[in-house]
């Protein structure tokens, strides 16, 4: 009987070997595919059993920064619920984290915040043995709470005044590309997304989704508007860079009406004259003559204008801050008559408010455009940095030489300091309490310009030693100097602590 027993032992061995192979297959090889299966309630539930990392705005460089999103234990349970202490103020930055998904920084840095990122693995194995609950990493943002608060309040006030006009603003530290404020209005309250009830969540999401004012749209980076006269920065840059002999003092043709090759006439705003009809470039710039820049646009050529625009960051859909940024557009315009329009920011030109800020930031930073970014660093629960932005920023491109940048800077200075400048009334040093250099834009809109004009403003401050560059767009706001410039001034004042 022993021979049969030995054979039976082999059968038992085979059964255990099969079981061992199978559990290895399930738990080692199939583990990832099982955990990522849609409908895996464990993963779905798990994210609320652990404390998700906080999001902290550090742009004011005061103490530990300001917590703008954190997870708090729901009383009497072991479940953590996301909480946004400032409600809608930081919504376009943080986005929301809900049981059905996340947006904004919550979505872009989800793995780090949730603690599932590979770089946090060592820490989590250690916590496994020490029995500490898993924690997410903390994400530190470049956002300045002061600038962001001012941005939100200014956009809201503007909207209330103008019957709910949508608007957006972005502020950047020009020397590094660090984003200081990023606001869009109307916006949403992310706390409406933190409920654990699927039906309640769908209900509030639907309400936002169907609202005509599109509160979920992040206009600052995901909506584009005609840049209007702010595009004259690009046209000036192209022309000044084209020949070393040109300067802001060089005179440019600026008739009251420019006859385009196709026979149409290009007028200045309200048919005004522009200086003596042949003013220096700097004067054409601060009074914002369309005819001067229309003719410069024709002169510099289609390719040069396109290249210059692309160097400023247009025509690229690759930018992520890390939230993906919609591409601003400047298409090649071979027809000189149409190019005259595109050179003053009309026709098919489309930019995001972030792009507006990047115009001013480039000039403020001596012609070098720094890559805009939101995440300063990410810190594991053991305080180890798993990701840090370079303290000096990273260069995105060099659109103009420092010489040309300083020349355009002088011209932008005149916009707010010369009595004839378009933004003198709303952004002069007496009003603002600080030297601001900027360029206004009033973009015609809609079919046959039937729509309300969009108000645009791009600027930096202080003029001598720039610390902040701002781009503002108020959809249908009218004159850029009237609707957009005051918003930029408020943000600059808040950030620089003036007034």
């Amino acid at each position, binding site marked *: *009987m*022993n*021979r*049969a*027993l*030995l*054979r*039976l*032992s082999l*059968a*038992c*061995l085979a*059964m*255990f070997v*099969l*079981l*061992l192979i*199978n*559990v*290895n297959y*399930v*738990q*080692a090889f*199939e*583990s*990832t*595919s*099982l*955990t990522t*299966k849609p*409908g*895996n*309630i*464990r*993963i779905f*539930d*798990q994210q609320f*059993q652990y404390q998700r990392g906080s999001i902290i705005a550090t742009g004011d460089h005061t103490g530990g920064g300001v917590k703008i999103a954190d997870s708090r234990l729901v009383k*009497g349970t*072991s479940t953590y619920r996301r909480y946004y202490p400032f409600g809608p103020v930081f919504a376009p930055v943080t986005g929301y984290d809900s049981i059905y998904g996340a947006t904004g920084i919550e979505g872009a840095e989800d793995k780090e915040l949730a603690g599932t990122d590979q770089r946090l693995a060592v820490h989590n*194995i250690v916590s*496994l*043995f020490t*029995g500490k*609950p898993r924690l997410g990493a903390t994400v530190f943002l470049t956002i300045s709470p002061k600038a962001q608060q001012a941005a939100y309040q200014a956009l809201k006030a503007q909207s209330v005044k103008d019957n709910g006009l949508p608007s957006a603003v972005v502020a950047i530290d020009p020397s590094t590309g660090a984003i200081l404020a990023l606001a869009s209005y109307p916006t949403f309250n992310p706390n409406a997304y933190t409920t654990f009830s699927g039906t309640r969540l769908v209900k509030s999401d639907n309400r936002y989704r169907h609202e005509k004012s599109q509160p979920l749209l992040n206009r600052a980076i995901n909506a584009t508007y005609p840049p209007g006269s702010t595009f004259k920065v690009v046209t000036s840059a192209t022309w000044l860079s084209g020949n070393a002999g040109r300067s802001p003092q060089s005179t440019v043709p600026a008739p009251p009406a420019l006859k385009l090759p196709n026979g149409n006439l290009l007028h200045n705003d309200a048919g005004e004259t522009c200086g003596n009809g042949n003013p220096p470039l700097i004067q054409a710039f601060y009074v914002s003559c369309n005819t001067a820049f229309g003719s410069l646009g024709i002169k510099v050529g289609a390719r040069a204008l396109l290249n210059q625009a692309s160097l400023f960051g247009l025509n690229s859909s690759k930018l992520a801050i890390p939230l993906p940024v919609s591409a601003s557009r400047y298409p090649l315009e071979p027809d000189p008559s149409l190019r005259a329009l595109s050179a003053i920011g009309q026709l098919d030109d489309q930019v995001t408010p972030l792009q507006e800020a990047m115009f001013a930031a480039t000039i403020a930073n001596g012609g070098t455009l720094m890559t805009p970014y939101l995440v300063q660093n990410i810190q594991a629960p053991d305080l180890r940095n798993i990701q840090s932005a370079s303290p000096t920023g990273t260069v995105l491109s060099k659109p103009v030489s420092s010489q040309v940048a300083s020349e355009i800077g002088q011209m932008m200075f005149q916009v707010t300091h010369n009595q004839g400048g378009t933004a003198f009334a709303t952004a002069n040093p007496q009003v603002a309490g600080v030297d601001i250099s900027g360029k206004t834009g009033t973009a015609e809109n809609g079919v046959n310009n039937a729509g309300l004009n969009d108000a645009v403003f791009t600027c930096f401050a202080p003029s001598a030693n720039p610390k902040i560059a701002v781009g503002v767009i108020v959809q249908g706001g009218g004159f850029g100097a009237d609707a957009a410039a005051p918003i930029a001034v408020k943000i600059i004042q808040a950030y620089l602590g003036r007034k």
Partner: protein
Amino acid sequence: MPRGRRRTEFLMLAFAVAVVLFAYASVGLGLNGKLPAGLITYGLSYAVIVFAAHLAVRWLAPWADPLMLPLAALLNGLGVVMIYRLQQSGRDGNPGNAISTMSTSTTMLQVIWSAVGVVAFVAVLAIIREPRVLQRYTYTLGALGLVLLAIPALLPASMSSVKGAKVWIIIGGFSIQPGEFAKLALAVFFASYLVAKRDVLALAGRRVLGIDLPRGRDLGPVLIVWATSLLILVFETDIGTSALFFGMFVAMLYIATQRTSWLLIGVLLFLGGTYITSMLFGHVGERFTIWLHPFDPQYVNGAVVSSYQLVQGLYGMGVGGILGTGLGHGQPFFTPLVQSDFIVTAFGEELGLTGLMALLLIFGLIVQRGLRAAVAVRDPFAKLLAGGLSFVLALQVFVIVGGVTRLIPLTGITTPFLSQGGSSLISSWVLIALLMRISDTARRPAPQPIQDEGMTQVVRAG
């Protein structure tokens, strides 16, 4: 001169107790960062129970295998720890959802069942001093086994059915699973019957196509067992138990006769029977569908045919990965009835692949020690019984662990020592007692022959 090795057993047992107490403390720390309140009381009762078993072995079976008791105690202890962990889920402010099919007294009850199991273990060692004593009750035990099996099928559903499995006897809130005890009774019956008949079964017959076929009248008992297991399958919705009985009988038939033809006939009969019943009865076919397409959305949330439990178990094991979430850190409460059939998936989730493999190796070691005793013992009846019991333990682990890990179609049977429930626990302890009794017999030195004083004496040095 072989040694009893009770000291080894004592040390191994102390180690097992230490592992269990560590796991128990770890559950508390994992759940709420505090040592569990019952660490002293439960821990002490558990230690007292298993060391009492050890003392009984010293007295009643001093030559028995030293590994079996520590291994069984370790499994029993870890099972109690996991049941405690599951019971605490979502209760007393702990994380997770409360498991509605468990109550706050479930762990206490399981500790009591463990004590009863050890009492049964000691009683078997005390009453059955020699394995052959059992042979006297061959037909009594055979009849008892069949009756125990048949009772749930004959009782009305209200007294025998829990969640579709008609394998219980429920009297006044108190329920037992007679199949667990029928398994042991029938093992003894088979061993005894086959030892008596093995010569006829092995030698008489015709040779057809190179296979030795037994005589028709010798096939009788095989057919009866086959029919019985099919009846269980049909009436009690219990393909697992049916497979277990059939496998056990075929294996013992093979040990007794050493004829491969019996194995072939047995396997063919089982497969044929399963195929026919799966055609005739929906619930058997469903098991195959679920096994093949568990993630199909129409089954995951299926109202009639549902793979929800299987899928949740797999998710749990997937989340556990290689090292597991740690005791108290997982979410095994998502798997319905995780405390019974699916308890190994909870181990897989919280102790990971590492812990689950360790558990499987512990089962494997018990089986190996049992088969070792079978090889070593001389009495053919004891040999056959030890072989059959070891094999049925291996088969049971294979069927349930293979089922919940989707190696084979899922059939609901308990995991020996681990699953919540008294019947399974007590019968597992009795099984260990029988194996230890047989190993004690095998390892006991033969009585010294009385030597003639006048002749040469053997003088041993040292």
